[in-house]
């Protein structure tokens, strides 16, 4: 096996941690801890982007890293923590499948994701192509997190984690998207979270809870 340069080794380690965090989020049932994990995931994304910016010398990656830091490490977790305190939602005890089952499902998903990413990774010329499989896996694991949770707040954290996975994928496949697109996506995510904040208060005002089983009355046989 050929020797990898040191910075690439770090990058691969970051990617591995990124995947590990996705699993941690899958198992975590305290909402506050979930948000912390999300912030940590954002920080890893930011660090990986910085490292890549240093390695390739592409200035737009520095901006991208800065954007990630501001939005995903600082602002969104702060906003979510604030919402959690104001709304008093701390636990998501009800999972649709128990933790062991979810974990096993997660393992299968990772294998599937690496299979899916194989043809893309084979074509990629970037130094980080090994991480593409990890990015796909994180996206799918975040999706699983969303499916298995009942509380609106955990679903939103899953959604943001999915966004992180997508950005990680964009970074490892193509060294990031064009700046204008990244800015646009960041703006959309920001607005989405603000809309959501308003929305949460509306749901709570109406139902006294953020539990989604209140939101299951619209079916065809009403």
């Amino acid at each position, binding site marked *: 096996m050929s020797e990898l340069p040191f910075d690439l080794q770090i990058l691969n380690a970051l990617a591995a941690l990124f995947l590990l965090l996705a699993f941690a989020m899958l198992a975590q049932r305290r909402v506050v801890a979930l948000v912390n994990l999300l912030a940590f995931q954002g920080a890893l994304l930011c660090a990986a982007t910085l490292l890549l910016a240093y390695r390739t010398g592409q200035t737009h990656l520095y901006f991208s890293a800065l954007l990630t830091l501001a939005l995903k490490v600082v602002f969104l977790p702060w906003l979510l923590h604030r919402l959690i305190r104001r709304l008093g939602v701390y636990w998501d005890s009800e999972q649709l499948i128990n933790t062991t089952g979810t974990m096993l499902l997660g393992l299968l998903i990772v294998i599937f994701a690496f299979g*899916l990413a194989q*043809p*893309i990774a084979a*074509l*990629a*010329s970037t130094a980080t192509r090994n991480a593409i499989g990890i990015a796909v896996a994180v*996206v799918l694991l975040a*999706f699983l997190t*969303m499916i298995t949770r009942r509380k*609106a707040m955990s*679903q939103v954290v899953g*959604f943001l984690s*999915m*966004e992180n996975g*997508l950005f990680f*994928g*964009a970074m490892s*496949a*193509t*060294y990031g*998207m*064009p700046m*204008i*697109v990244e800015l*646009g*996506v960041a*703006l*959309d995510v920001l*607005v*989405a979270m603000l*809309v*959501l904040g*308003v*929305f949460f208060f*509306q*749901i709570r*005002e*109406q*139902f006294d809870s953020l539990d*989604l089983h*209140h*939101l*299951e*009355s*619209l079916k*065809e*046989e*009403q």
Partner: protein
Amino acid sequence: MELIVLLAIPLLGAAWATAFGERSYAPEANSAFSLATLIAAAALAMRVIGEGSFSAADEQFFIDPFNVFLVTLTAFVGFTTSLFSRPYMRIELEHGRVKPRQLRLYHSMYQLFVAAMLIALTSNNMGLIWVAMEAATLSTVLLVTLYRTPASLEAGWKYFILCGVGIAQALFGTILLYFAAEKVLGGEGMSALLWTHLNGVKGSLEPAVLSLAFVFLLVGYGTKVGLVPLHNWLPDAHAEGPTPISAVLSGLLLNVAAYAVVRCKVLVEGSLGSPLPGRMLMAFGLFSVIVAAFFLWRQRDIKRLFAYSSIEHMGIIMFAFGMGGPVANFGALLHMTVHSLTKSAIFFAVGHAAQKAGSQVMDEIRGLITLSPTVGWGLMLGALAILGLPPFGVFASEFLILTTAMREHAWATPILLLALGVAFAAIFGRVQPMVFGETTAKRLPHSPALVPVFAHLGLVLMLGVFIPPSLAEWFRLSAQLIAGL
């Protein structure tokens, strides 16, 4: 220049409404902004007729016959819906379903929604199209929940989360597209996501990556189009929000999402050199038509009924685009136009009918024709038009699509005909007693706006017998463009 004005007006309108949207004359101002947008769109259309396609702002924006007719349609329906929304929202205000403060949100989001759709239509950058599509969703989420009822909150949450997840798939598709394009066009500069550039080199894009990208793009934007089985959000969002929003969601947003799918399909088909993407569109389209036609029977809420009818018609459009070829594409483009006009007209009539009956439940709406013949006839004629009765334009487009299907995919024709028949029976059987029979309707405090209903139906009737030459030319040119000729 026209383009800057076109995009600036609704954004200005949104800014204005954020500050003054609760004033008593705000509905009129909303219409005025929409009228100005329509005039700008008409100016843009005149320029395309005169000069042909052009791009602007460093090629970030691009106008060709395919999107210019959708821009005009969007601006037109945006304007007529704002006319309908004037009396409609005043009546809702008097019935106490909304507060004046919420009208501010309503008006500013209405303008923002139109702006987002216009950006999505005119943008040449596949990434920007994604951003604008997401912005269009976000601007309508709080409108779906405007009434703050439990059902509307549920509808809004579903809309937010399902379309959010869907659009995340589309983002992944866009990343893959960029990944493939970067190899050919180079990552430096902006050109690798510009549709015109991609279209120029589509033959040399890596087929394996593009087919994977198309799956994600189709699922992502297909969620917005309301293709079965990704359609769950659509009937709820249509039924629980204010009716003007149902009209623009059904008449405009679905079209814009279909537009994004078709733009992607052109690229992927060019790269693969096989009809696979078209086949996928056909399968999704046909499945949507069938499922929606049978779900029509189970509806009790009038707005849900017509929401399912929208799914059915988007299925027909997707099926036609999937068949490809100049004739089927022509039919699909015509169908997009007439469906949008007819469906928004129906929602205008439905809105006032539900207000008169005090309920959206169809069994409680009876005998509209006795108290207000115009609402009754508007609903009846709209229903006949959407069901594809001959003099109306829907008949012309469905005829084109069905005859092409008969020639190229004969097996699909009986399935389509069966679904259309089932839908006919379901909708006609529901609408007939609502229009005729013993009346339950009440008088309304403001006179309803019915000019838009009949203006739309008149246009649909006209398109059924005569298509203006410049519009036919646009349809023909875009049909060729989509067919990859």
